């Protein structure tokens, strides 16, 4: 077979070689079938396996031919040349065959490749299609789940249960025939029923509202009626008052007071109760009353306590913000201060009457946020008093009650907790507000039963009745003696300003009948002026002159000698005697520090004050002291040795009878007056 095929092919190959293939192709397509020799078509027709067999055979044939040629050549050339040629030709043919086979193989390869490519493209297209379809499936699935998850609004509405629905709903709504079988229709019917029911309830609600309105109106009318009743009752009460008075039955008044007393804060209540109790039991001239707006006080107690707590909380918060922005929030801080210093709308007044119908009015206030009590004082006199200029401070509310108990100036708050409250709102001390608020003396707190221990501040200070009771009697007595001594001083000052030292008949024995030195001036001076005097240094250093005391300047004259006396009047006069500091202007300035006799004169009034107290209760102490100053000035001047270097008679001839002129190492003059002999001796 191979031989056959090789034979057939042979001419073709030759032919192809002989004629140019291009020429053949260029001849047009029309005769392609005839003329065109296409190896490509040949490829289809030929079996590749047979081609492979042919190739092998050809190769073997070639090998054999080569070997024969070599053998022939090796034998010698001449003889075998023809044979060799022949064989050469044969091998050429074989080569042609090989070439042909090679081409075919190439074409086949190309064809194979093309086919593979085509198939691959097809597969790709299919793959793409598959993916599209998968995506679509997924999308549809999502849509389906969405639909499945949808919830209708009606499911939230609570419906009556099925049984109830069929029992209660009218058949035209429930339509049991349809609904029992169809759940959808059933649900719709139930919803209808629900709507129906709700409509009915809404109507009922409207009806109720109108009836409520009606009832309210009725109440209003009844209230109006009641309030119109009150003034009528009041007028009846008013009309009954004269009857009560006529019958000496002040039930109504007392009842009223106790009624208002219920609205007093605890400390004022304690004060009220204790003061009126003391007044009833021991002191008929003590009158206690309540003043102020009761309505406001009532309003204070309406809000429950926790709301107050809230307030204080917000206080604290606001406080923080104000601290940050203090300069811009001055007004707000001011309001805070006012709020902190607010007093209770009710106050208790206590009127203390003295024998001569002079009255001391005390008004007690309670500062709610500070938990301290304050007092304001006022004096009304029975007779119009001649106003002495120097007596201005004596009865002023600011100083009248100063140091009722030693050291109680009433300028600082007695409650130690207050300082922290002040720090919050920027109050330095309470003393700046004292004139407005009244003085928070310690005794006032005690009367109100408030006790603030200094060393251990308690959390809550409560009003204590026993404390108030234990201080009431002493305080009332002190108040009364304070008023009396001030009034007595007031009277004395009026005559002192006119240069008259009033000496009562009981005290005449303390002084000789003739005293030449005269008081010419009596004026009040401020503390600063007093402190500036050079001869008051010792008194200030000894702590006997504080700025809360009262200060006066007296001028006593005799001839060319002028004696200045600076006087410290302790508020506790006359139990605490006044202190005099002297300065004599006569032949130079003589004071206690450079003249022992001036010092002795000072101690004559300052230390030996007991004999000058006079009759009880010692209100003449000051005038007696002044009179004694005049007396000892006389002694001083008259016993001064005559200066021989100056001509003329002595300015002050000795008129006083003295046992000895000089005594002791201090060379003191005889300042002590002896009654009734009327001579002067040394103390």
């Amino acid at each position: 077979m191979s031989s056959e095929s090789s034979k057939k092919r042979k001419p073709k190959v030759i032919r192809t070689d002989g004629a140019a293939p291009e020429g053949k192709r260029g001849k047009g397509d029309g005769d392609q079938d005839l003329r065109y020799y296409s190896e490509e078509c040949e490829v289809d027709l030929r079996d590749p396996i047979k081609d492979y067999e042919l190739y092998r055979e050809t190769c073997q044939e070639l090998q054999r031919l080569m070997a024969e040629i070599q053998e022939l050549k090796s034998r010698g050339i001449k003889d075998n040349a023809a044979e060799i040629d022949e064989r050469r030709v044969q091998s050429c043919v074989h080569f042609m065959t090989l070439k042909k086979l090679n081409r075919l193989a190439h074409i086949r390869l190309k064809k194979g490749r093309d086919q593979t490519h085509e198939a691959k493209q097809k597969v790709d297209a299919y793959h793409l299609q598959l993916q599209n379809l998968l995506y679509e499936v997924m999308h549809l699935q999502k849509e389906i789940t969405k639909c499945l998850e949808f919830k209708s609004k009606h499911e939230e509405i609570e419906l009556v249960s099925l049984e109830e629905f069929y029992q209660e709903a009218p058949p035209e709504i429930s339509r049991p025939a349809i609904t029992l079988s169809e759940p959808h229709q059933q649900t719709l019917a139930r919803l209808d029923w629900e709507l129906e029911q709700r409509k009915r309830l809404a109507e009922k609600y409207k009806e109720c509202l109108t009836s409520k309105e009606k009832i309210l109106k009725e109440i209003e009318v009844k209230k109006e009626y009641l309030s119109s009743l009150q003034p009528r009752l009041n007028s009846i009460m008013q009309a009954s008052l004269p009857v009560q008075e006529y019958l000496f039955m002040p039930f109504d008044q007392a009842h009223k007071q106790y009624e208002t007393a219920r609205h007093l804060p605890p400390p004022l209540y304690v004060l009220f109760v204790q003061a009126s109790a003391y007044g009833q039991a021991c002191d008929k001239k003590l009158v206690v009353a309540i003043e102020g707006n009761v309505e406001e006080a009532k309003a204070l107690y309406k809000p429950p306590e926790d709301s107050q707590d809230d307030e204080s909380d917000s206080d604290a918060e606001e406080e923080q913000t104000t601290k940050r922005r203090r300069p811009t929030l001055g007004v707000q801080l001011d309001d805070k201060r006012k709020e902190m210093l607010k007093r209770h709308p009710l106050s208790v007044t206590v009127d203390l009457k003295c024998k001569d119908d002079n009255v001391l009015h005390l008004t007690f206030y309670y500062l709610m946020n500070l938990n301290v009590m304050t007092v304001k004082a006022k004096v009304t006199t029975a007779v119009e008093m001649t106003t002495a200029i120097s007596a201005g401070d004596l009865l002023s509310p600011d100083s009248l009650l100063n140091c009722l108990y030693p050291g109680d100036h009433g300028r600082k708050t007695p409650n130690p907790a207050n300082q922290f409250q002040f720090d919050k709102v920027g109050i330095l001390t309470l003393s700046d507000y004292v004139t407005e608020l009244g003085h928070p003396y310690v005794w006032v707190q005690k009367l109100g039963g408030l006790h603030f221990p200094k060393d251990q501040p308690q959390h809550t200070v409560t009003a204590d009745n026993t404390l108030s009771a234990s201080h009431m009697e002493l305080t009332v007595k002190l108040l009364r003696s304070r008023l009396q001594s001030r009034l007595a001083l007031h009277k004395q000052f009026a005559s002192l300003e006119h240069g008259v030292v009033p000496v009562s008949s009981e005290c005449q024995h303390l002084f000789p009948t003739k005293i030449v030195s005269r008081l010419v001036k009596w004026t009040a001076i401020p503390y600063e002026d007093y402190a500036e005097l050079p001869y008051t240094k010792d008194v200030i250093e000894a702590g006997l002159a504080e700025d809360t005391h009262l200060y006066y300047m007296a001028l006593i004259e005799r001839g060319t000698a002028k004696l200045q006396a600076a006087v410290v009047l302790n508020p506790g006069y006359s139990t605490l005697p006044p202190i005099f500091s002297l300065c004599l202007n006569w032949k130079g300035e003589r004071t206690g520090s450079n003249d022992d006799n001036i010092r002795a004169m000072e101690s004559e009034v300052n230390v030996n004050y007991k004999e000058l107290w006079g009759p009880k209760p010692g209100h003449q102490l000051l005038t007696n002291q002044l009179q004694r100053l005049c007396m000892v000035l006389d002694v001083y001047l008259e016993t001064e040795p005559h200066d021989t270097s100056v001509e003329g008679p002595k300015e002050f001839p000795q008129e006083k009878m003295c046992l000895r002129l000089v005594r002791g190492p201090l060379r003191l003059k005889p300042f002590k007056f002896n009654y009734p002999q009327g001579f002067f001796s040394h103390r």
Partner: protein
Amino acid sequence: MAAPIRAGPEAAPPPLPVPGGVKRSRQLLHMSVLSLSASPCGRYLAAGNNYGEIAVFSLSAALSAEAKEESKRPIGVFQAHPGPVYSLASSERLLLSAGDGEVKGWAWNELGKKGTRELWTRRPPCRTSLEVPEINSLQLNPRDNCVVLAGGDGAVRVLDMESGSFTHELRGHRDLVHCLALRDLPPHVLSGGEDGTVRLWDLRSGTQVQVIEVHKYEECSRPNHGKWIRCLATDSDWMVCGGGPALTLWHLRSVTPTTVFPLPPRQHHALFHQDLVLAGGPGPALHQLQLSGELRGRVPCTPPALRCLCLSPRPPEHQVLTVAGNSPKIDVFTNLGYRAFSLCFT
């Protein structure tokens, strides 16, 4: 506090922040310490004031290293005389105090205890009952065991300590006698008085030896301040005296004022100390003067006017100077240059 109070001065006044009450605070304000005397051992100091009180201070406690405020307060105060305590003197065993017309002897070892009473009281004879003359100065004479008294009636009296009787009454001063001083050789007592004279007395014979009328010497006379002699001190032939006249150093044998010290008049107390004269008077300062008349130092003190100076021995071989005057405070000097601290009446 709760006790009711009766109206009036006799009622108990409310308690004062001042200890001792109102009266005491006033007394302290006007207190003058007129006399000082240290115990012979130097550990205690007695001070008498114008209210007749004697306060005993423990100098050793106040000077010790661990002295507190309390140790500068008196360990005891007692009322010695009704009037002022004009003068104090110490013997080995006794403290003598002089008041109005009486001399009292106190045992040093019992002073400061509560309820101390005087060992004895002697009253010099006086002529009238109306006016009891004060005793302005005491001068102990250990050699004869007697004490010399400067009387307010112008008499200098000698009290024999053994018998307790007045042995001599030396009259000569025309007014009260202010001060006394003792001279060893010849054994004379000097007295200075209001009449402006310094008189020398022989104690054994009881006669007046010499009279120096200080105010008649122009160098030291200050007529506008008076002629009274308030302070007197001696050291062998030298004498310092002053008062109304200026403080002057005198040579006794020749009776001449040798140095007039440049001090203001009215000096109250002068002392010889080593080669210096210490002087105190008006003005809150202690003056240290050299015998030549130079002012060596002026040390500020607490009292506004000085009344008395007191030198006391302080073992070992130190001396303490105490100074008092118109103040309840008594200044203590361990060194002449500055005030160490102050003792104080309470």
